[in-house]
Every structure is written in structure tokens, then in C-alpha cells.
């Protein structure tokens, strides 16, 4: 068995927490995979910042309609019951608390709920897009992320060192090793890989893990 979940498996795990009929915004890139793993019998309604509710998968190559794209500028399709609206109405849905969950990627997430996912520092061209809006208003703001950086440093930290996207906004982290809630400014461990001891997980986490009585096993099928 692998020592960590793949991105697809993290996305699968995040998808299990999305209720039937939930309104969901998925960040550009890795978080978009969550849409593939809706459990049978459940149908979430996906929102994209550029003014579409209830869009579906990408069309076959060559059949794209470039007036029908998502926030990542990728071609999409519509499901029955879709709606178009302008950008102010779209972000009204976001800020107004109408989304049930927003799932984003991240560079760092801190135990106080701070998120840093838009800038790795002052070099290059800064670009923020809709992330600073999305982290406010959704009833749950979750991140999907590898537990550590490519060079092994914790991405779950005491305090963010990179420029913030939002203050105290994240409520749950789905990582490659664990599921962690953020409650009262602390990381609360909900699930971890069965193959991993708590001490091992703590060693690759940048802030103290609060350990409740029940810690579930983090399990995900082989998906891709």
C-alpha cells in the first residue's frame, strides 16, 4: 500500500463529504478533480465564478464552445437546470453565504485557519483571481493538498509565512495523509492513514495536532 494518498484519492475523500444537492465551488486545477468522485445517488451543483451554475464535464475535444467555459478558462458543458448570470451576481452567491462548500488548493494553511494560496512571494506577476472572495462566505471552506511540500516541509503550519489569501477562513483540510478540522484555532485530527502512527504524522505537521477520542482511518479506493 502507498504511504500517501494520490491527488485523485484526496479528491475522492473530499467528495464523500459533499451532500446531495450541495452547491459547490471547486478551485482551478487539482480541486476540480473532486467533481469526478460524487458518490452514487448524490448530485452536487457546481458553481463557477464566471457566471454558471450546474455545469458538467468537459466536452469532447473539437466540440468546445468557447463562450461556455469555467473560471479556469476550460470548456464545460451544461446539465439540465443550469443558469447563467453576471459576475456581480456570481460573487454575490460567493460572499453571501450561498455556497455550501468551496474547495481550494493551497501553499500553506495555518492552525488558525489562515490560508496562503495565491502568491509565493514578490517575484513575477501577482495574480489573485477569485480566491480572496471564495474563502469568505461559503458555509465550509476546505483545502485539498499534499501534506508536505515537494522538499518535505509541512504545508500545515503554525502561522503562514507566504502572503495570505484570507484570515481564519479554512474549516477542514483534506491532505495526502490525514483529514484535519480547524476548530478554535487548532488542528483537530479526524482521520489518518492506518499505516501511520500519530507521532509520524505530527512530525510532518507544522503545528500541534489535537487528538480527539475517536480518530478514523483515512481510506480511499484506487482512483484516478
Amino acid at each position: 500500500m502507498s504511504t500517501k494518498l494520490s491527488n485523485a484519492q484526496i479528491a475522492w475523500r473530499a467528495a464523500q463529504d459533499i451532500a446531495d444537492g450541495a452547491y459547490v465551488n471547486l478551485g482551478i486545477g487539482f480541486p476540480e478533480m473532486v467533481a469526478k468522485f460524487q458518490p452514487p445517488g448524490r448530485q452536487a451543483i457546481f458553481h463557477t465564478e464566471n457566471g454558471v451554475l450546474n455545469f458538467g464535464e468537459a466536452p469532447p475535444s473539437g466540440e468546445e464552445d468557447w463562450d461556455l467555459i469555467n473560471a479556469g478558462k476550460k470548456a464545460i458543458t451544461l446539465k439540465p437546470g443550469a443558469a447563467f448570470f453576471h459576475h456581480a451576481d456570481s460573487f454575490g452567491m460567493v460572499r453571501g453565504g450561498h455556497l455550501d462548500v468551496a474547495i481550494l488548493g493551497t501553499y500553506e494553511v495555518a492552525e488558525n485557519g489562515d490560508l496562503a494560496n495565491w502568491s509565493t512571494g514578490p517575484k513575477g506577476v501577482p495574480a489573485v483571481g477569485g480566491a480572496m472572495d471564495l474563502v469568505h462566505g461559503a458555509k465550509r471552506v476546505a483545502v485539498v493538498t499534499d501534506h508536505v511540500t515537494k522538499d518535505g516541509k509541512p504545508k500545515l503550519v503554525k502561522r503562514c509565512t507566504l502572503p495570505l489569501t484570507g484570515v481564519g477562513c479554512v474549516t477542514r483540510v483534506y491532505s495526502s495523509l490525514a483529514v484535519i478540522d480547524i476548530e478554535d484555532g487548532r488542528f483537530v485530527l479526524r482521520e489518518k492513514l492506518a499505516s501511520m502512527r500519530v507521532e509520524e504524522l505530527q512530525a510532518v505537521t507544522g503545528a500541534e495536532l489535537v487528538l480527539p477520542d475517536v480518530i478514523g482511518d483515512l481510506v480511499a479506493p484506487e482512483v484516478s
Partner: protein
Amino acid sequence: MDKTVPDLAAAVAGIEDGMVLMVGGFGGSGAPIELIHALIDRFKATGSPKNLTVVNNNAGNGRIGIAAMIDAGMVAKMVCSFPRSADPRAFTEKYLAGEIGLELVPQGTLAERIRAGGAGIPAFYTPASFGTDVAKGKPVAEFDGKSYVQERWLKADAALIKAELADTMGNLTYRKAARNFSPLMAAAAKLTIVQATKIVAPGEIDPEQVVTPGIFVNRVVEVANASQEEALMRDGVAYA
């Protein structure tokens, strides 16, 4: 994902004492008469809901709709811009007797405050009412040499909305000028309850023509032959 409910009683369940209730419509156009009357029916049967704060442009007409709620004694306070109508006695009598409260809000400010409530904007500035009695006690600020009044968002526990078409996912269209405050209120309430002239399957409303996306709607009930305030008034109906 199916937001339809079987009847009007089920539609208005969960509206409780002391709640803030937005009611769509401008005068009779867009007034969800059947939802309001279903709420009155519940009040008559159970004594609840009462002590409501009702948000609407007006404060009722004759003895039906919001006026009948006031007559029945369900309303503690109105938030509106124009508490007058062809027959305003339900509100007027209670207001002059000190038995009902009134928060008077300029019409555009009322619309914008409700829009802000739905859109997550806690406060904004408007030129309307600056320097008038209506702005007394409100913060003011100057921008680019002109003075403005700060206004706060307005949200509700529940909203009663009249739509033309609804699909089962809650996407809505409206009929002509019956649109007015309804799309704003649908977004500003925690529990948005819709009576639609016709309920259709998802996909039967063109996505370009949806005015209120289903994300703002919780329940939909079909009322095929909805009453129009003007017709009820002409017929002398008294509901309370």
C-alpha cells in the same frame, strides 16, 4: 435535489414567532397572496407565527395579503418605503394606535439593502436621504466631494416569493413587472419559499432566462391560478 413541496401548509412550515419575513411584490404585482394566506391559516389554527417583522415596499391593501396579516395581529413591525395604498386602514389604524412599528426606508435604499444582504455586503453608501430626517443617526461620509449616508444590509429568516415558472431545482422566472423585489429577497433570506404558477422539469427553463438561480431557493409549491390583489379588492375579499 427536488425542492417542490406538496402544499401551501408544507411550504410555510418553519416560519416562527419573531422572525424577519420578506414578502415579494410591489403593491399587488408579485404579491404571493396564497403563501401569505397559508401563513394566516396557520396563525389562526395555532397562534403562531406572530410578532413578525415584515419587509415589503408597502404595508398592505384592504383586508388581504399583508394587510390581513396585520389585521390578524401577526405583525410587530413593517419595514417599507410606502405604507400607503388604495385602502391602507389595516396598517394605519394600528400605527396611529402605537400597536405596530415602522422602519421607513427610501425605496431604492430598501432594494439595495436587501441586495446587499443577499450579496454579502454588510454596508454601503448612498446619496439617498442625505440631509433628511430619514438619515438621522446614520453614519455619513464624503466621497469625491459629495456626501453620502451609510446603510446596512437587510437579511431575513424567510422570504415569500411569487414566480411565474419554477423548475424543481428552484430556478425561477417572473412575470413582467411582478419581478420587482423578489429576486433580491430570494437571495437575502435563509429560507426562500416560492409559489410558482407552473413547475417544470430542470432544463425546461432556458439557462439564459433564469432570473433567480435555484441556489437562492429552498421550497417551491405550484399555485396555478394565483389571486391578484386588485381582483380580490374589487370583490371585497377580507381574509383575516
